[in-house]
């Protein structure tokens, strides 16, 4: 009954749950980014303009921001098993809509709805945290996140080939439709597999007490103000998208755009009121010092995740297109080359967590953020003159810093305020999606070079914010050479 090691080759108990759950996450990513490597073919057969293609990219990540909240609540109520299964099954529908689309509006609808499947991450995190003890949780979540994220690389590598098998670009044989439909079919089939083979909790596990839900808790009036400010970008991202759709592409009329702006403002006010009602106490009774935490820490992590995960989502969507346009590659080659970026997920995300365990949270983040700024700067220099292999190496190096940065951010999250880890992780994750919407909107306005430079600039901003981050403190226990455990205070 010993469980000291995490044997990944076993397929029993919690390891089985971990494998089944990361595969579920893998499939959500596989379906979510099934368009990226096929964009050229799609643009050809639906006769899309460049601007419309870029709009599709933004639409793909837009709905994920609100969906995360909805999915989080559903997971609380119905448990991860049912929620993940239903999410996969429902998520297959927009895949089919997109696969059968005849014009831009239908494709846009499919992409927009597919944003829902991107919220799957939250579900699995709950599942894993219920099955693994604290000691193995970091590793288990690293495997879940890293291997699952690899789904986008798998899509980039395999889908162009699958499309070719189904007839490629030949008129009348639009292979991309089969490829995308296939991802939907996989998600649908797996939803049944998942439901049949997992349970929400180990047998005889203890219930969670409902916590104050609906808003983040803060511990000082200043932090409350900061929280309200930090909430703005989540609504601003959706407003930005609305603007893009009405002013830029014109699929949303002015009337509806105004209505959406009004709705977003109203939602923000409701959210702020809810936040106030949950945090009312702090204005009259400030909590004891031991229960306080600094929201500034959360804000910094949010910005960093904005730059890391946000840029990853954006780059993964556009990289195949970028490579094929810059180096005039065919879709299969472009997909393969672009997958190099997401391929790194397998090891760099867990590595980020490991390095930060060893070398301290703050120095690790500083180095990784500087690295990713440099990496994106390098990528902005890529042009047709570069040898292809150099471009691939640059993309891989850059992606290492990005994904290790993601891992390092999530290594800090539980240390801020353990009781609120779920909420802090949720908000940080949402910022990743906000980043994706932001970067993809930027991409729709400027050239690839400027796009990479903007990411590099925001990374520098993140670097500056990092200087405000305080190394998480606490008492640490040390094992002395004779094996006895004793206490040391870490300042």
């Amino acid at each position, binding site marked *: *009954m010993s469980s000291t090691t995490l044997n990944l080759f076993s397929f029993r108990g919690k390891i089985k749950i971990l494998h089944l759950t990361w595969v579920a996450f893998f499939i959500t990513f596989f379906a979510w980014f099934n368009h990226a490597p096929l964009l050229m073919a799609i643009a050809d057969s639906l006769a899309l303009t460049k601007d419309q293609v870029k709009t599709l990219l933004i639409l793909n990540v837009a709905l994920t921001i609100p969906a995360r909240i909805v999915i989080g609540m559903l997971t609380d*109520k119905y448990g991860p098993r049912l929620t993940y299964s239903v999410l996969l099954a429902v998520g297959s529908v927009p895949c089919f809509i997109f696969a059968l689309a005849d014009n831009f509006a239908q494709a846009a609808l499919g992409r927009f709805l597919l944003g829902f499947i991107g919220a799957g991450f939250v579900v699995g995190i709950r599942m894993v945290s219920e099955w*693994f*003890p604290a000691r193995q949780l970091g590793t288990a979540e690293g495997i879940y996140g890293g291997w699952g994220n690899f789904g986008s690389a798998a899509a980039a590598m395999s889908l162009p080939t699958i499309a070719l098998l189904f007839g490629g670009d030949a008129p009348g044989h639009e292979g991309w439709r089969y490829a995308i439909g296939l991802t939907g079919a996989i998600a649908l089939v797996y939803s049944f597999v998942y439901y049949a083979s997992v349970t*929400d909790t180990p047998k*005889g596990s203890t219930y969670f007490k409902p916590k104050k839900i609906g808003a983040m808790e803060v511990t000082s009036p200043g932090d409350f103000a900061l929280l309200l400010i930090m909430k703005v970008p989540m609504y601003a991202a959706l407003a930005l998208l609305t603007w893009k759709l009405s002013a830029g592409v014109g699929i949303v009329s002015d009337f509806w755009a105004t209505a959406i702006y009004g709705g977003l403002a109203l939602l923000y006010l409701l959210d702020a009121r809810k936040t106030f009602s949950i945090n009312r106490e702090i204005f009259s009774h400030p909590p004891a010092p031991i229960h306080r935490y600094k929201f500034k820490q959360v804000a910094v992590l949010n910005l960093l995740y904005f730059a890391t995960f946000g840029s990853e989502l954006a780059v993964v969507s556009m990289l195949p297109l970028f490579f094929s346009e810059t180096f005039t590659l065919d879709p299969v080659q472009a997909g393969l080359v672009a997958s190099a970026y997401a391929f790194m997920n397998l090891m760099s995300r867990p590595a980020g967590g490991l390095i930060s365990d060893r070398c301290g949270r703050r120095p690790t983040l500083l180095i990784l953020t500087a690295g990713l700024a440099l990496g994106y700067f390098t990528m902005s220099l890529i042009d047709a003159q570069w040898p292809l292999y150099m471009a691939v190496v640059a993309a891989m190096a850059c992606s290492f810093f990005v994904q290790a940065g993601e891992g390092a951010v999530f290594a800090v999250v539980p240390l801020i305020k353990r009781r609120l880890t779920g909420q802090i992780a949720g908000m940080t994750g949402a910022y990743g999606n906000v980043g994706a919407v932001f970067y993809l909107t930027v991409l729709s306005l400027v050239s690839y070079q400027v796009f990479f430079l903007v990411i590099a600039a925001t990374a520098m901003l993140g670097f500056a914010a990092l200087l405000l981050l305080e190394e998480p403190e606490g008492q640490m226990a040390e094992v002395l050479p004779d094996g006895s*455990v004793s206490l040391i205070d870490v300042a």
Partner: protein
Amino acid sequence: MSPDLGTPGISASRAEGSGSACGPQARPDAALAFSSASVAGRRKFNDDACAVCNADGADLRRRGALAAVADGVASAEAGGAAARAAISGFLADFYSTPETWSVKYAAARVLHSLNSWLFRQGGGSSDIRQGWLTTFSAVIFKGTSAHLIHIGDSRIYRLRAGQLECLTRDHSRTLGHGRTFLSRALGMDAHVEIDYRREELQAGDIFLLSSDGVHDYLPAEIVGEILHDRGAAAALALVDAAMAGGSSDNLSAVVCRVQRVETPSADDLLSHSRQLPFPPELRPGNRLDGYLILQELHASSRSQLYLARDTESGRDEKNGRDQEKNGRVGENGELRAIKTPSINFSDDPAYIERFIAEEWTGRRLDHPGIIKIFPPKPGRQFLYHVLEYIDGQNLRQWMQLHPHPDIEQVREMIAQLVSALRRLQRMEIVHGDLKPENIMVAGDGRLKLIDLGGADGPGLREQLNLDGEAPPGSKNYAAPEYFFGDSPSHRSDIFSLGVIAYELLTGHYPYREHAGFHHYQLKSYAGLQYISAREHRDDIPEWIDGALRRACAPDPRNRYPALSEFVHDLQTPNPAFAREGERPLIERNPLLFWQMVALLLLLSHLLYLL
């Protein structure tokens, strides 16, 4: 009586005839200052008795201080003896009750047995002259509350902010022309009803317990004045004043002045534990405060369990020998299990509170069917429990190896569990977290309850100052009242036991599993539909299924009221269950019945429209 009581003093009339009095006995810094006096007055014998037991600091919180007055009925043969027996008996027995009992429960239990004893001493006679009759009034000061216990016509007064208030009601009847008689007293009947009342303490409160020889001869204003002005000498002054007022009875008064109210978290040991950090993850070979970690036994998202050897215990027992062979120290120390809290909860005060409570509870239980928790070593650096190591498997593992046990075997196991649960019940503790994972099957086949982290009960709450929230309970095993908003009771444990019995026999749960792992709100007990055990296994007789159904009835009122009835019904066919199939539909499935009625009505309306 336990040796570490503050200053137990049965002041008063041990020696008959000589009116003895006792002066103030207050420590200057004590939270409570007592003074008492008891004299025979104009009578020959003093049939009154009074006692004070003072406590301070942590003792005040743990055990409480006590002031009591008893007034033996003079017309009875042994009034004085009864009063003295009641006072000394109550003092001795009350402080011997388990710490897990609430004050109310403990006082009631002690007084009921005292009453039976007094009643038997009087020969059960209805003639008052032969009876051992006494009034009894006591105030128990514990934590921030005063618990008032009262029977008869002695009184308890409270002076708060200049206002004198009598907190008790005399149990006496008037016969006319000034003659009264007691309607209730200890020793009067085989059964006795005792008044109980709980009051919050405030600094500056003054409590007075007096016999009728005092309060019948003094107007309330004078009592208030004396209490207010005379400080430590108040008791004596009251007695003197009543004497001067013409009292012809024995006179007793106990005065208690509340100097300050101890804050509830005064228990040093508990508050020290609260400061301790969580241990880090332990690896084999690590040493934690003298425990050598051997291996990890179990780890969940809530806690970790390690097997450890107590390297210091071996040394203590065989002092000389072990020190010679220095290198082998601890080789043969006792095996222990170490339970450490999960870092997931390092800033969850409710979890830490429960974790500490678990040790406190476990150390007060001694039963072969319940895991032993050992006291921590002095100077421990971390928060963890030291548990008895049980070599065996848990019931979940046992069930996996024995998917279809005999009914006989299950009966035997349930009987063992019931024996342990009965002990908990007697200690006024609800286990609250019964599940196969929390039951160990030792090598010799004996079952042991482990994990008292869900333990709850009024006494525990009083002692440990736990917050109002019940522990969360376990999925599929927690009784429905946890989700309905009713407070858990022993019947909640019976529910869990019923589920375990059902699962042992069939390998399934009696109710459909609820999705997710968050606490939910149950709207009505009727929403839970029991699945007959016979659907899973043919060889289960109907009456066993009936017993299971009743043990895990969703509504606690329909469940077995006592463990013994469940055990009995598992062993002997209960005729009430034989007719299960013949019960009318409205009893078996009220929801379906009313749905059908509604449907019929709807159809008849439709017919009418046609």
